[in-house]
């Protein structure tokens, strides 16, 4: 009798089926395809493999997937897995939302103002929905310790999202999109010290904005409810970027939209080789800058623009500090 029992017990299925054993054994499987295949062997194998399948995931898509017959969004459909098992989350725009990715990068070597562009508004809605989905996912992934993102626009928004909802995270690795035409947003200064202490100084955190070629900044693409100080936004962004240890980017074009104007007073400071650098130099290497676009200056009166143009032209754009800058869109339109 005992012998028969033994024969029944000691099989691969039985061993994997012992919860503790199965979980330990599958802990040795590192390849997600191996784990997936193992999960499809039998119910016992599935139970053992499941925690590992959900431990480190790349989000397939946030809303609809051909394999999901119901209409539930990713975070709702897999809420229990996210809650229980997910330690590491990867967001790759090209895999998760390839169409949106293509549209916000297609042909746009230069940031364009969204305000007068309906396509831009549709795209903005798409990106806002993406952020809303990421927020819901982050809220559910209570055990999240590691987050990585590739080609997600508005990378500082992404950091703010992580900071707000998963401040306990230990490792963040974000690769900025080369053609992030949506632009960055400010890190809120009041939370920054806490965030930096927890994450920013962690060697696991990398925000290689240096990949960026074009950068557009505009309050119009900010999500609702963002606290904003339009008078000092640009200066604040540059100084915070510097304080956070960011090295000057190698942007080819920088577009400053509504809310990110260079404050007039700042333009009075001439930039000379011996002088104090303009705060923009903290954000990007002005010597590499080919185009600075000031999108919202059309709202200002013409004389004011001329004044700005002169000052910019002599102090910032035409000076030795930005020798290759050729384009000054906003001013050209008005003058």
């Amino acid at each position, binding site marked *: 009798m005992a012998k028969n029992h033994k024969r029944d017990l000691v099989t691969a299925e039985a061993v994997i089926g012992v919860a503790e054993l199965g979980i330990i054994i599958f802990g040795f499987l590192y390849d997600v395809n*191996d784990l997936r*295949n193992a999960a499809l*062997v039998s119910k016992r194998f*599935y139970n053992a493999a499941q925690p590992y399948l959900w431990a480190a995931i790349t989000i*397939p898509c946030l809303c609809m997937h051909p394999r*999901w*017959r119901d209409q539930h969004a990713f975070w709702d459909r*897999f809420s229990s897995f996210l809650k229980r098992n997910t330690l590491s989350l990867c967001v790759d725009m090209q895999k998760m939302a*390839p169409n949106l990715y293509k549209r916000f990068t297609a042909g746009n070597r230069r940031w364009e103002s969204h305000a007068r562009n309906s396509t831009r508004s549709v795209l903005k809605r*798409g990106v806002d929905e993406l952020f809303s989905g990421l927020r819901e996912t982050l809220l559910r992934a209570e055990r999240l310790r590691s987050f990585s993102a590739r080609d997600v626009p508005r990378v500082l928004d992404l950091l703010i999202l992580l900071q707000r909802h998963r401040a306990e995270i230990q490792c963040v690795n974000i690769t900025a999109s080369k053609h992030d035409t949506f632009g960055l947003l400010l890190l809120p200064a009041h939370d920054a010290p806490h965030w930096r202490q927890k994450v920013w100084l962690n060697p696991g955190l990398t925000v290689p904005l240096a990949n960026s070629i074009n950068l557009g900044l505009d309050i119009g693409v900010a999500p609702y409810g963002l606290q904003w100080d339009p008078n000092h936004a640009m200066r604040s962004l540059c100084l915070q970027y510097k304080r956070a240890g960011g090295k000057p980017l190698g942007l080819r074009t920088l577009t400053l939209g509504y809310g990110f104007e260079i404050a007039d007073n700042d333009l009075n400071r001439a930039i000379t080789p011996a002088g104090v650098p303009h705060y923009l130099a903290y954000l990007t290497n002005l010597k590499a800058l080919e185009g600075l676009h000031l999108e919202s200056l059309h709202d200002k009166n013409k004389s004011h623009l001329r004044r700005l143009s002169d000052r910019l032209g002599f102090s910032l754009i035409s000076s030795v500090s930005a020798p290759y800058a050729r384009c000054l869109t906003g001013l050209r339109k008005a003058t």
Partner: protein
Amino acid sequence: MAAQPDFLWIKNDMSPDGRVFRVSRQAAQHSTILRALIEDFEGIDLWKKEQCIPIKIHVSDQCLSDVLQWAENTKTAPEKGENADNNKQVELAAEDMHFFREAITTSEKLYELLMLTDYLGIVPLYNMACQVVVNMIMGKSAEQIRRMLGISKDFTPEQEEAIRAETAWAYDEEQPPLDR
């Protein structure tokens, strides 16, 4: 105080004849369970044959004998408080490869070994056995794994499809997501 004997006794309680095995003090150090017993009951009658330690899981005498032999032959037992990490990829040394080739000739024996090493807390051998199981599974399809291990499929087609849907990120090359 008289020196303690150098052997303790283990009985396979679930085998029909209840065979008893002798284990040296040194070999017992490989097992976290036996090591703890020795520490807790050093001064008591632990070393007498009539006080043998029962094994209460279904494993064969041969498996128990093989494991204890491995422990006798493996000189470097982990220090107290030191355990090999679980879930780390394990590389098998030449003598361990030899052990698996000679003693673990069937899947059934391998799974017995897993059960027994887990029961006795012989972590290094347990990890090696896990790695051997994993090596068997790696790179194989679900169907190949089933065939190799003699497992029957107990999913309905709907259940299988549900699992595939759950793990959709692993299928990203097959079907792109629908985004707008």
